[in-house]
């Protein structure tokens, strides 16, 4: 039994399972083949070819204007329109099918959630009864109805259905078709430059998939995660305990962790930047700098900036902002984050990719000794 099989709360009924599986197949095929045809049409268009040649030369032109011109070219292709429509369709249907499928298994899911854990890992969960949700947080992220805290069984929907049957195949947002999203987190955790770490902190830890990856790379490391969502933290704590990962979880804003100065050897943020506005990102990096020990390292991973990708890929990434419940996607991908880290005081800052087509994109740096 794999560790992840220990956290599969329900077996979906035939309709639920097969209805999600066909979405995974549709997304895998269209994102690889139909999108490939759309990209080829973009490059075959003389205007598109000119955009490719000059993509990073027009420094005075805002990214929004550059992308608008590229989008005009992309939209000339029927393949582009069809692929985008099916992207939206799958993004909606994972919840339109996944939530009712879970609801039909409510008793089974509730029994699993209430069942005792045979060998608890020994982690802790500290919820904040006075937690304040910022205005920008009230979003139905990724078209998830009710947002992170809306559906009480969303953990079962994700771990028993959407994640293994649809997301596992890749082909959405910056994740390429065929990408292994579990391995990507491990690959990013390996970007910490030292051989061992005493304590690593992750703000916005969500389902703790990244902290589990950190524990796989640095088994002796103490890991601490925080998030704003009560539901995500409760589900993450239960999953980590069942799967044997000892993790300390706290309900905190990434800008105010309440951790002591210089108390961590590493900070990691995975797929968090694009869920927060620019100013919240900057304040979160300042907080990370504060809690890092001198010589400590920060590793960030998010979709690649527009400057690092093909113009057609920039159009695809920008699309998520208005069409997949990602309101901060474009403003985050327009920024020069390495320079922001340097301005805060980080040194040895570098940015690079550890995957295909720029994803996962990694930015890492260190707090001076």
């Amino acid at each position, binding site marked *: 039994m794999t560790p992840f099989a220990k956290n599969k709360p329900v077996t979906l009924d*035939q309709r639920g399972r*097969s209805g999600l599986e066909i979405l995974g197949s549709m997304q895998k095929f269209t994102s690889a083949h139909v999108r490939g045809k759309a990209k080829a049409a973009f490059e075959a268009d003389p205007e598109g070819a000119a955009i490719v040649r000059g993509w990073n030369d027009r420094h005075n032109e805002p990214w929004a204007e550059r992308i608008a011109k590229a989008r005009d070219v992309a939209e000339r292709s029927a393949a582009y329109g069809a692929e985008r429509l*099916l992207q*939206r369709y799958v993004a909606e249907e994972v919840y339109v099918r996944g939530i009712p499928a879970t*609801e039909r298994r409510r008793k089974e899911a509730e029994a699993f959630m209430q069942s005792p854990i045979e060998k608890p890992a020994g982690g802790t969960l500290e919820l904040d009864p006075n937690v304040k949700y910022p205005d920008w947080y009230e979003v139905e992220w990724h078209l998830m109805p009710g947002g992170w805290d809306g559906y009480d069984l969303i953990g079962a929907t994700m771990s028993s259905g959407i994640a293994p049957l649809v997301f596992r195949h890749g082909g959405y947002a910056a994740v390429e078709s065929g990408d292994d999203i579990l391995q990507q987190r491990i690959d990013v955790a390996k970007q910490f430059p030292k051989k061992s770490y005493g304590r690593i902190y992750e703000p916005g830890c969500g389902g703790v998939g990244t902290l589990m990856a950190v524990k796989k790379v640095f088994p002796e490391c103490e890991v601490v995660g925080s998030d704003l969502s009560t539901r995500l933290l409760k589900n993450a704590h239960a999953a980590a305990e069942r799967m044997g990962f000892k993790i300390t979880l706290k309900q905190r804003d990434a800008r105010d962790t309440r951790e002591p100065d210089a108390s961590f050897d590493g900070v990691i943020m995975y797929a968090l930047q694009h869920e927060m506005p620019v100013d919240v990102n900057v304040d979160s990096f300042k907080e990370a700098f504060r809690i890092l020990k001198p010589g400590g390292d920060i590793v960030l991973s998010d979709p690649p900036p527009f400057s690092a990708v093909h113009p057609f890929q920039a159009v695809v990434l920008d699309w998520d902002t208005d069409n997949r*419940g990602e309101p901060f996607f474009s403003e985050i991908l327009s920024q020069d984050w390495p320079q922001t880290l340097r301005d805060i005081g980080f040194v040895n800052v570098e940015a690079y990719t550890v995957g295909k087509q720029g994803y996962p994109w990694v930015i890492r740096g260190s707090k001076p000794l």
Partner: protein
Amino acid sequence: MVDAPKRPYTGDELTDSLLRMNAELLSELWILRDRVTILEHMLEEKGVVNRQALNDHVPTGALAEELTNARDDLVRKVIGGAWTQGFSLEGLVNSVREKQKA
């Protein structure tokens, strides 16, 4: 409430609608093929029914009513899916609870 898509992705509403209908039909076709393949496998394994018996069976009574309801639901999803007006958590959960009550 997750809002409906703001604009046609393919350049016109009709093409968008036809593609959505096609995606619904593709899904329903697969769900059915998955089920029938499993069903035939299980029936054959247990020696309960052969294909000729399936071909010859005429649904009546409660089974006929079940098929009517399922067929109407399929038409609503395939034809109506193209003009979806967004969806909410409450609506998704209630759709199951109402069926369970019935």
